[in-house]
């Protein structure tokens, strides 16, 4: 049996080189977002990426089901989209629907992280001593005192988040700001992929906010007039806003990872967030 002949080897080599050279521009154009459309030739497309850190959530784009999240399926990338606005809906049983309008631009991807808030947010009264009811939360006296003292200390006017952003309360308004615009790593500051801001207004209006902090993936804040709310920090349209304890005068503190609300003299722990 003779070694592989030079002619055969050349045929394989030149054949593969030819195939490589033919495929190369196609692959590179495809990877960059170019698509061929009959009648239009090569067009630039964009994409959408939705991160869904929950299981069993349905993702719709312009009313069409794009998929359902699972343990292994936490991200949805939809490419080949013409530049335009797209309505994204993420729904899950037991949670508020999450709606977002995303602008797709040429060769760019609009991304967002679904923020699903339970529709069963409960304020459980905190009492001290032995538990007397399943509808209250019993803590030790020292723990209860700890909670009370926490409310005697004025709330911080700013707290820092995970990605270099901070939440501020200024003149009764609540903002989330980037300390360094160059460190922008999340798209919630961007109205569209190519246009970003460094400040997201959370509550800016007639109400007077008295405190705000990052909690449960969003911003928790309290106003004198309406109580405690949870808002999503996102510059794009229809960010989530959920009443947590909507009673005038209620204030909150985050103690040991729990959200505690004070209404008059009563303390409540918020569950469901």
């Amino acid at each position, binding site marked *: *049996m003779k070694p592989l002949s030079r002619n055969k080897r050349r045929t394989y080599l030149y054949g593969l080189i030819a195939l*490589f050279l033919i495929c*190369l521009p196609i692959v590179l154009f495809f*990877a960059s977002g170019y698509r061929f459309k009959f009648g239009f030739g090569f067009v630039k497309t964009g994409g959408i990426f939705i991160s869904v850190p929950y299981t069993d959530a349905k993702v719709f784009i312009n009313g069409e089901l794009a998929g359902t999240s699972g343990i292994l399926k936490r991200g949805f990338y939809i490419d080949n989209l013409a530049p335009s606005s797209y309505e994204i809906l993420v729904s899950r049983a037991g949670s508020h629907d999450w709606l977002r309008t995303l602008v797709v631009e040429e060769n760019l*991807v*609009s991304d967002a992280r679904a923020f699903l808030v339970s529709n069963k947010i409960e304020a459980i009264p905190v009492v001290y001593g032995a538990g007397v009811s399943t509808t209250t939360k019993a803590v030790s006296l020292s723990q209860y005192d700890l909670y009370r003292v926490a409310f005697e200390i004025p709330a911080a006017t700013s707290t820092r988040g995970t990605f270099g952003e901070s939440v501020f309360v200024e003149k009764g308004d609540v903002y989330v700001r980037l300390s360094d615009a160059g460190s922008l790593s999340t798209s919630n500051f*961007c109205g569209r992929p190519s246009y970003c801001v460094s400040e997201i207004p959370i509550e800016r209006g007639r109400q007077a906010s008295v405190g705000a902090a990052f909690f449960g993936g969003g911003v928790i804040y309290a106003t004198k007039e309406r109580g405690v709310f949870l808002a999503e920090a996102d510059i794009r349209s229809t960010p989530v806003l959920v009443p947590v304890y909507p009673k005038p005068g209620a204030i909150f503190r985050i103690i040991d990872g729990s959200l505690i609300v004070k209404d008059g003299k009563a303390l409540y722990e918020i569950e469901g967030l």
Partner: protein
Amino acid sequence: MEKTSTYWYLHVGRASDLDGRDRLIYRLFEMLPGFLSVGTLALFVVLSFSRPDLAAYLTIIFSMYWLFRTIYLSIHLRYNFKRMRHNMALDWNARIKGLKYEDVVHLAIYPFYNEAYEVVAESMRGLIRASWDPKKICVVLSAEARGGEGQKKIAMRIQEEFGSKFLDFQVAVHPADVAGEIIGKGSNISFAAEEARTRILQPRRLSYDRVLVSALDIDTVVYPQYFACLTWYFLTAENPSRSSFQPVPLYNNNIWAAPMLSRVMAYSSSFWQMIQQERPEKLATFSSHAVPFKQLYEAGYWQKNVVSEDSRIFWNLFARYDGNYEVIPMAYPVSMDANVAPTFLGTTRNIYRQHRRWTYGAENIAYILFTFMKNPRIPFRKKFRAAFVQIEGFWSLVTHPLVLFAVGWLPLLVGGRGFNTTVLSYNLPLVAKVFLTASLFGLVVCAAIGMQLVPARPSEYGKWRSLQMILQWALVPLTMVIFTSIPGLDAQIRLFFGRYLGFWVTPKITRTTK
């Protein structure tokens, strides 16, 4: 180094052997492989920060190239496997009947150091089992004086036990600390070759051009038709006096006892050699190989001052005969030991060191470029081709796996938001994954061929062990980076900084299967 003969540069080992301008040039050549490999990786890192889009395109191109290369190489591998099986089934003794082979004498040289009696004895038994008249085989067993009395005793015991079966059997003891030599196989085997000349070839008046030297690692067990096959190739070669002969190194001696990692590396090495067998213009001698004594003598034997004497001897001969020298692939195997140490960590360390030694073959690049510069009789086309093949080979060995499985993904981490919002950044993993996944078919080819090359399963191992022989191929992406690219880079960086590597003897410990 004295420049008295035409080929005064033939045994240059490193830049420090030279002086003046030659020294500087050789030093720059030594730095070249490291410069190219580190430069490529650094370019990727710099681009990942400054132009992540370009780095991403390069990664996609690399992954696509990887697929096409896998297809191309798999064709060669599969063909060589078929040819090797065909050759193993042939009766080579019958084939050489019509040729003038009676006066061909085989000289088998076994340098050894610290290996146990059983390892040496099994190699001798292999010679006797071969279907070739042992009275036409001379053996030189060359111990190292550094190995102490124990080594000499093993050599003498082997001589007593097996010596009378061969035409001649000599024990040589390579002295320690000879000026101009580095500790290693090259100095020992070169010494043994000269011992063979003065103690066997001259007294027996054997014609140098009818003596074929098989330079065999001490753990090399020849397959039955090795000598007949080698003789046939020698006698039918277009230019036998300008040819070396390369069998396929399999690591079957202890393959069932070797851990998974070691098996993958062993077969990967064998498969690479099988691929090269179908690309003889890219083939240099490696590990156990054969060469006519006359040419070996004229070239001054193997170099005593380099680590990669097995491949260097080809380049010595290539330069000595002005580019008119080739390696003829035999497509016939010899069997050696896979790397096995008493502990898994020890095996891992040994594999790393062994592959660093092998990839230290990049030291040949400086030698090749230097001799090409000094030898105007080698045609430019041959020079260019040989240099390109070697440089590209050592460059791709180090850079491709590291790009595909490490730095190629850097743009996603450091590209910043400007890059991370592009369609390209999202498509980079998707597109590269398609090509890399498609390339996995190469592993399927490897697994299929590996299963057919492996010897019969010893009774002490169950079916699970056989299944592991297939599953082990999933380790390839890891082994390519950890035991090919990184030791290769290590070796090239050492060359770059002039921190020359010494010879490291792979311990031969286990021999349980044949």
